[in-house]
């Protein structure tokens, strides 16, 4: 799986490299448009187009029948039943292409989330590095048998530390003094765990960003799948999660006036659907 993640990361880094200079809304716009068209083609070749076309024709025919024979109750009811049945058929026929599309879409959305859901920490801003410790390690730490510490690469200053009464939570405040991708290293006993801290203006860090690494998730939403660009601590590690606060959502709020479009996924859906509809007649796709 990690090899697949590496491959996925490499592919997406490569894809985004030419758009490094673009503002986030523009690069996301381009990506969304391309994905919309690619998904349209994927839909075409993974769906039973002739049957979808037939069902759509049936719907139109029955709609017309309802209009023409609106005084004939038998024809109207029969046509209504036909419309429902044909719609249901289209729904069933859509399932295989949707299932196929999900396979690339999950890592794709994870990659997009990493690049557009969060922005780097602004230069000069103070952030909290929130580390959750395992119960066993927290007990050791509380009794002075083990220590936990944070080190930051040049350009990030560690200001102060706070520990909860039971030591399960240890927080540090850090100030980002220099733009760039910085590394935070948490030392828990003799083990070390790293977390990346992007600093700079929105869109200035071409790599993906995640606010949190955690080994709490299981199953489908495992970090391996959803946070592919940074390894999470193993399940038995003394550190359960590392989270960085203050990585703001980005993309649309700076360029579009409507708050709802500030959510990158809404923006992504609108642009990708727009382009899919635009190219539908050119590629002769029945949806």
């Amino acid at each position, binding site marked *: 799986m990690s090899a697949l993640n590496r491959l996925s990361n490499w592919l997406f880094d490569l894809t985004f490299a030419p758009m490094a200079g673009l503002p986030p809304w523009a690069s996301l716009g381009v990506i969304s448009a391309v994905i919309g068209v690619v998904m349209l083609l994927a839909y075409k070749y993974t769906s039973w187009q002739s049957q979808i*076309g037939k069902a*759509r*024709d049936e719907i*139109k*025919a029955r709609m*017309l029948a309802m209009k*023409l024979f609106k005084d004939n109750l038998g024809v109207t009811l029969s046509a209504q039943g036909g419309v429902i049945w044909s719609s249901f058929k289209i729904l069933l026929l859509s399932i295989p292409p949707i299932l196929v599309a999900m396979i690339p879409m999950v890592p794709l959305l994870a990659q997009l989330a990493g690049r557009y859901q969060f922005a780097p920490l602004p230069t000069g801003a103070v952030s*909290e590095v*929130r580390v959750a410790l395992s119960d066993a390690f927290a007990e050791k730490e509380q009794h002075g048998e083990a220590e936990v510490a944070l080190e930051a690469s040049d350009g990030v200053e560690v200001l*102060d*530390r*706070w*520990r*909860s*009464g*039971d030591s399960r*939570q240890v*927080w540090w*405040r850090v100030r980002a003094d220099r733009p760039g991708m910085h590394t935070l290293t948490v030392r828990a006993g003799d083990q070390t765990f790293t977390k990346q801290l992007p600093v700079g203006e929105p869109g200035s860090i071409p790599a993906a960003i995640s606010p949190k690494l955690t080994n709490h998730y299981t199953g489908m939403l495992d970090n391996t799948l959803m946070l592919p660009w940074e390894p999470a601590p193993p399940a038995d590690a003394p550190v359960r999660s590392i989270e960085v*606060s203050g990585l703001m959502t980005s993309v649309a*709020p700076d360029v*579009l*006036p*409507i*708050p*709802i*479009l500030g959510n990158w996924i809404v923006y992504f859906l*609108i642009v990708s*659907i*727009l*382009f899919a*509809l*635009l*190219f*539908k*007649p*050119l590629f*002769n796709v*029945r949806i």
Partner: protein
Amino acid sequence: MQNAECRMKAICRTERDCGSTACIADGLRSALLVALAFVGLVLPGCGEKASKAEGKKVIVLGLDGMDPRLLRRLMDEGRMPTFSKLAAKGGFWELGTSVPPQSPVAWSNFIVGGDPGAHGVFDFIHREFEDGQILPYYSTNETTYGEKPYEMFGFYMPMPWQESSKLLLKRGGKPFWDYLDEKGIPSRLYRIPANYPPSESKHGYVKALSGMGTTDLMGTQGTFQWFSAEFDDDVGSPDDGGRAAPLKYDMEMQRWHCKLAGIPNPMVIAAQGAEMTIPIYIEPDREESIARISYVNQAPKWGMDQPVEFLLREGEWSDWKPVVFLPSPFDPGGGAGSRGIVRFQLRKADPPELYVTPINFDPAYPSGKITEPDDFAQELAKGVGPFYTKGFAEDFHAREAKIKIDLGGYATELRLFDDEDYKTQTQFVMDEGKKLLTHALSEYKDGLLFFYFSSTDLVGHVFYWEPEPGEPEEFTDHPVRDDEDAETYTKSLRETYVQCDAELAKVLEKAGDDATVFVMSDHGFMRYKRKLNLNTWLLENGFISLKDEEKRRGSLNDLVDWSKTKAYSFGLNAIYLNLKGREPQGAVDPKDRDAVLREISDKLRATRDPLDERPVVKTVYRTDEVYHGDYAPGGKFDQHTPDLIVGLHREYVVRLGGTGDLSLKWIYNNTGEWSADHCIAAELVPGILLSNRKITVTDPNLTDLAPTILAEFGIEKPEKMTGRNLFAPPK
């Protein structure tokens, strides 16, 4: 039937013909619909009406309470080079202020171009009558209560057709920007005082952010919250406003907790009037003076609850944090809840003590009307982030707050802010103002730009201790500070003035050579050492009678025998006759009005300070002589107009009347940190006026600015304005 078959065939033929022009058009149509929906969503936020100002610019920088003597002193010292430059180019004049020289009155004079008779704002505090009782309200706005909601299953259920409570702007008269609005000239007004809720722009050319008078989310003029592990359940309220509540320790969770009070819950009958609260948790570190503060905001509408967690060191302030009060899952307010913003100061880490600012509106999601148009608030939030929206942003209540507690059998007085805390907090307000001004200038193209700073006033009230004319330049005899402290803190006010110089530089840079620039203040300042209680004075001079001579503590409603009372004071400088036909229990016949007014005026003018026989009152203004317009005595709306305004000499100030305590002496020493004021005789505390153009009148007044601004845009002075055009050629 044949026709129908033909149409069926036609459709089928078209569908089979995919890729044809018709089919492509079909696809384009679908895409166009999505695009139109997208554009339809985006465009409404982009609209800005085309200006008809034709590039003409007028910029007004309003500096509340900037004192001409102190300003002159700093200019002479070379510390305000931009002010000096502006004065050299146009001029620097003392600006005549309002009667009385109180900010809501003075700014209303500026807004309508007339005296209080034109706008009906006479004091900070006005009175209204309800069931024969005299009740106070803040003079420039008032909340009216709507219909009682229906009761169902133990809940109040407000229905859409029921009249809801409303917040009303009580300043009367027509603001000068309405005339600009009618002509298509844009006005941008930032923190404009005496305009909350903001007046409506009928033609869409006004963008206004309300300033002084804007309440907090609770609807008060500022309720801070103070939590301490040293308070117990019956801690009571601090002496000068705000709230206090205990912090309690949870052994199991190893953390302290308290409840942040919000707005009353409008729905639950059993708890009608009870506030919704947010539990706040404080977890101090085991060894360091640092703590984690956390709470959870319930999510309005859909979405997940939002945890808010952050660290603060002892003495440190947080940035703005959102707080959401949600009446119920079936929120009648459209699911938005009531959202505000607060800043926390961790005063002590362990055991903790916490200060929370009054709950300000969140400009990004305002729960009340603080701007005109409504979305101007979001525009500002997007430009500068969250900021103090409350009118009196500088928390002087926290500076004066104190609470008596019992510590191990010893009575101890706890104070909230010290001078340094107040200085820090007022600097936050100043810094936000600077950021907002930078944004305002970047957005400004032409028309009118008005921008207001409040810190020159509210820092002045606490820190101003300048020598009076003729005195040696020494810092002596401060009521509560030693000489060194008096000097230190009046210097911090001077620093505030110096910061204004840098802000003026930004304004002048934007203004260029063509704009007309005014820098003005509503009044000046004067220190004081003695306080006057007007109602006790009226009592001792036979104008007020008591029901029970022994009972002097409480409100006027409870204490006064109205049938024998001739006059009373309400607010700061106002005296009202207990006039038959106007007052609920009037005792003075209208035909005796003049005689009683003369008697009070003569006695006030003859009053001497028992300490050193100095005269206390400089001027007694009869409102029927100094006010003009519908709100002046004899006008259409004179029901709430006072009869006399008392103008004190320097070194004196009036204690708040109305709800005043008649057990206090009529004159006594000031022993509070609030050691400078301006609510005295208007001629002693003029404001400032600087302009890049020379004016032609010798005695400019606040009321002159509105007609002058209109004239700059080619609009003739409206009939109701009594001010003059400052640039008009002398007759």
